[in-house]
């Protein structure tokens, strides 16, 4: 039995609403972080508000939502978060979303590994049949990362976002269980 929560660079951790709330509020002060991970207009929530948000999340535990903090193996620092949200149990399809808080941690392979671990969790622990994600056209680093992990392009909502005076598409990507199994077998052989 493998440890599904641990990779080579990072591991999933249970989140503590207070720690997560403080981290989130701090990360949100970098509007680029915010714009990469959220379509809504950027805002600056207080730590009090974000802690309350995460506490509420914990209360409403449901089998549909799996939320993790992500820590580096090297120095056990909380660097990001990941959510798996099963929106359709009959179809066994879930949305996945992740973010890495500080720009010094961008482009270091953390996101790719996080997504890799999340897919293993989704397919072997939650027994899903597919995983879906959306990503913004202006986030090519993320798009490349998801392609590497195995997601296929499924289309784009044209001119969905309006930021910095121009319009941007929102891309949909998806991976089926069969596709993930095949590539996992290839990788392991």
């Amino acid at each position, binding site marked *: 039995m493998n440890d599904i929560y641990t990779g080579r660079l990072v591991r999933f951790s249970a989140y503590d609403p207070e720690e997560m709330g403080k981290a989130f509020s701090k990360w949100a002060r970098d509007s680029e972080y915010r714009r990469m991970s959220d379509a809504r*207009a950027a805002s600056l929530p207080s730590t009090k508000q974000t802690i309350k948000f995460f506490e509420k999340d914990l209360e409403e535990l449901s089998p549909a939502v799996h939320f993790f903090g992500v820590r580096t193996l090297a120095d056990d620092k909380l660097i990001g978060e990941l959510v798996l949200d099963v929106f*359709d*149990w009959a*179809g066994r399809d879930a949305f996945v979303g992740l973010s890495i808080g500080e720009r010094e941690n961008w482009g270091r392979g953390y996101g790719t590994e996080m997504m890799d671990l999340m897919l293993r969790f989704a397919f072997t622990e939650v027994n899903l049949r597919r995983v879906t994600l959306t990503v913004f056209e202006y986030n090519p680093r993320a798009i490349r990362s998801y392609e590497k992990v195995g997601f*296929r392009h*499924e289309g784009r909502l044209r001119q*969905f*976002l*309006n930021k910095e005076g121009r319009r941007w598409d929102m891309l949909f990507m998806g991976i*089926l269980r069969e596709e993930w199994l095949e590539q996992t077998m290839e990788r392991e052989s």
Partner: protein
Amino acid sequence: MFDIATQLFDGQDIRFGPIDYEKDPEIESKWTHNAEFMRLYEFEPARPMSAAIVKKQYEKLEKKIEEDKNLYHFMLRARDDDRLIGKAVVSRIEWASGNCQLRLGIGSADDRRKGYGTQALKMLLRFAFAELNLFRVTANMAEYNEGAIALMKKFGFTEEVRRRQSLERDGRRWDLLVFGLLKDEWLNQAQA
């Protein structure tokens, strides 16, 4: 062409109307007891709802409309006798980016194929583009929903995303299709 006196809520045979708490819950409850309606209107598993449940949903809906301010809900009512025929929704409005999701349902199979869907979508698009001043609208549907897909084609929507095998019903997997229409595209075909 767009005259301030134009009626937003009046179609040829149907019109948009508010929720009638006295009459509507029972009618909508009856729709939900037919799994076909539920499977066309919702992605979630079909479930029948008592009038009490429908009424509670209306209450929660109106509260959400008040609080979130990113949602508009219309009942479709027959012009002649105000009979409840269906519903139309503009939801998930992202004001900063000017986009939203549209949803439309005709409750009873007897009322489908009568052109009500076309009339309703025409009014809904006008509301989204000329009243809410949005830039684009999105609509999601299952690939088995032929009626909805035909409506999309009629109004010039583009199939933008195919979420492969996202749904499962009757023991087989179905794609979830996402359609989009931009304001300029709507203006062109509205003028035509």
